[in-house]
């Protein structure tokens, strides 16, 4: 028996939507962490009941929550008061909530500022965790992309986090600048065939790749063109919105940029535009069909000034050719008076047969397709604004 579980992060809590392999009838559980912003929740690929959650608040800072039973119960892994911390007089230090930039000589660089909106240098300040990416082979290992942009890693199930400082220490670091949503590292892609290779994306610095498990990083933005920056083809400074791969073909990357849908077939070394016949190539999420590396999905948004779908019609666009040729998927989606947005982490696919595709909107709807996007059904209609969607297919 297969279970399909959707992990939904919203402005006011987390929700867990559960169905069987048919993906027609859903139960709704939540809100978890009511009233808190849940930027992201994601389960371990090797232990689906191990779920990491980024719980955050402009008032009370960052909390990391973990479940080991599929979301039935939660705890903060570094703040367990039953654990005696001998080095600190028996008091746990709340380490799971602690994200401290590495400025040590040994592993980090004393990089303390980046470019601010007014062109001056501004101190690096931790705000929140945007994205959690559990390891593909170890449930205790997880990566965190944070604002201000940096990559952190835990190897003890989230109890403690340390920065992979080589990224922020890249020579271009002082020139990185925030986008409108802040300077966030929002995308982490792990190469299933090469554990030393990781891709990440930062708004508004661009895409980066490491080939040595995070020690050193290289910008991978050749071929991107952004008219919003002084040099449209600069090495860094691009507002990349999201990147996805298919696990069977990790050398091909798909990117939704601020404007333009892009594709790379050489691990990010070079990119080419595949926006083709899209009604708008502005958008946030991009997804790859779990059974076909050449079938991809985007949700066109009118523009960076008008964050809603063209013509008030909510349409997912699917390409079966890896881009360039796109078809509108509209069955079951509102085709009039619709002015919601779909954020960068708010679209995901399952591994069911046929592939299930899911997305959440800023209007609080979560739509599901159990037929590769041909038709859509709202699972829920009135959640708080959806920030993220992840899907688990559990045998």
């Amino acid at each position: 028996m297969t279970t399909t579980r959707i992990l939904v992060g919203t402005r006011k809590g987390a929700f867990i939507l559960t169905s069987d392999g048919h993906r027609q009838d859903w139960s709704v559980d939540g809100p978890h962490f009511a009233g808190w912003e849940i930027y992201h929740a994601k389960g371990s690929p090797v232990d689906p009941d191990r779920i990491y959650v980024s719980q955050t608040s402009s008032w009370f800072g960052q909390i990391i929550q973990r479940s080991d039973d599929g979301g039935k119960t939660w705890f903060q892994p570094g703040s367990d008061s039953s654990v005696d911390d001998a080095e600190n007089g028996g008091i746990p230090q709340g380490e799971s909530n602690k994200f401290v930039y590495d400025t040590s000589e040994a592993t980090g660089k004393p990089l303390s500022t980046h470019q601010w909106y007014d062109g001056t240098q501004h101190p690096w300040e931790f705000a929140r965790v945007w994205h959690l990416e559990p390891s593909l082979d170890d449930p205790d290992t997880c990566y965190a992309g944070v604002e201000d942009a940096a990559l952190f890693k835990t190897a003890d199930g989230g109890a403690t986090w340390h920065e992979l400082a080589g990224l922020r220490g890249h020579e271009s670091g002082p020139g990185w600048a925030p986008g409108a949503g802040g300077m966030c590292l929002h995308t982490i892609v792990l190469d299933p065939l090469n554990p030393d290779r990781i891709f990440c994306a930062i708004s508004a610095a661009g895409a980066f790749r490491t080939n040595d498990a995070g020690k050193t990083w290289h910008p991978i933005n050749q071929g991107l063109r952004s008219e919003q920056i002084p040099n449209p083809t600069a090495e860094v400074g691009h507002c990349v919105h999201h990147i996805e791969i298919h696990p069977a073909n990790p050398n091909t990357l798909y990117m939704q940029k601020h404007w333009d849908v892009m594709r790379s077939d050489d691990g990010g070394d070079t990119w080419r535009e595949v926006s083709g016949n899209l009604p708008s190539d502005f958008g946030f999420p991009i997804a790859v069909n779990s059974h076909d590396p050449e079938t991809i999905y985007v949700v066109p948004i009118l523009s960076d000034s008008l964050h809603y779908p063209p013509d008030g019609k909510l349409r997912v666009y699917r390409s079966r050719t890896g881009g360039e040729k796109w078809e509108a998927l509209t069955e079951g989606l509102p085709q009039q008076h619709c002015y919601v947005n779909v954020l960068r982490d708010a679209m995901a696919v399952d591994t069911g047969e046929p592939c299930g595709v899911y997305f959440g909107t800023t209007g609080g709807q979560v739509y599901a397709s159990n037929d590769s996007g041909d038709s859509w059904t709202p699972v829920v209609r009135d959640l708080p604004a959806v920030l993220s969607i992840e899907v688990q297919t559990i045998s």
Partner: protein
Amino acid sequence: MIRIVLPHHLQTLAGCGREVTVTVDGNITQRNVLDALEARYPMLRGTVREHVTMKRRPKVRFFADGEDVTHDSPDDDLPPSVVSGDQPFMIVGAVSGG
């Protein structure tokens, strides 16, 4: 015993009610009261004060005996009514209307 009133979100995080009590070592100051709170409820570390600098988070306010003591020195003594337990030390999330 010092009485502390917590905002809703910290109550749910700590799994406690609106008001908790703590025993404070030394003078009854903001710093010592918050140290005692975090020692008893480690899940609150980093939520009232930033982890590294130990500075109050910008949108957190402290009230004591009807006064806003947010901007007082963290090492100033709190009012006698808080020291005696007649009044609570209140941790408040700043209002943010819309």
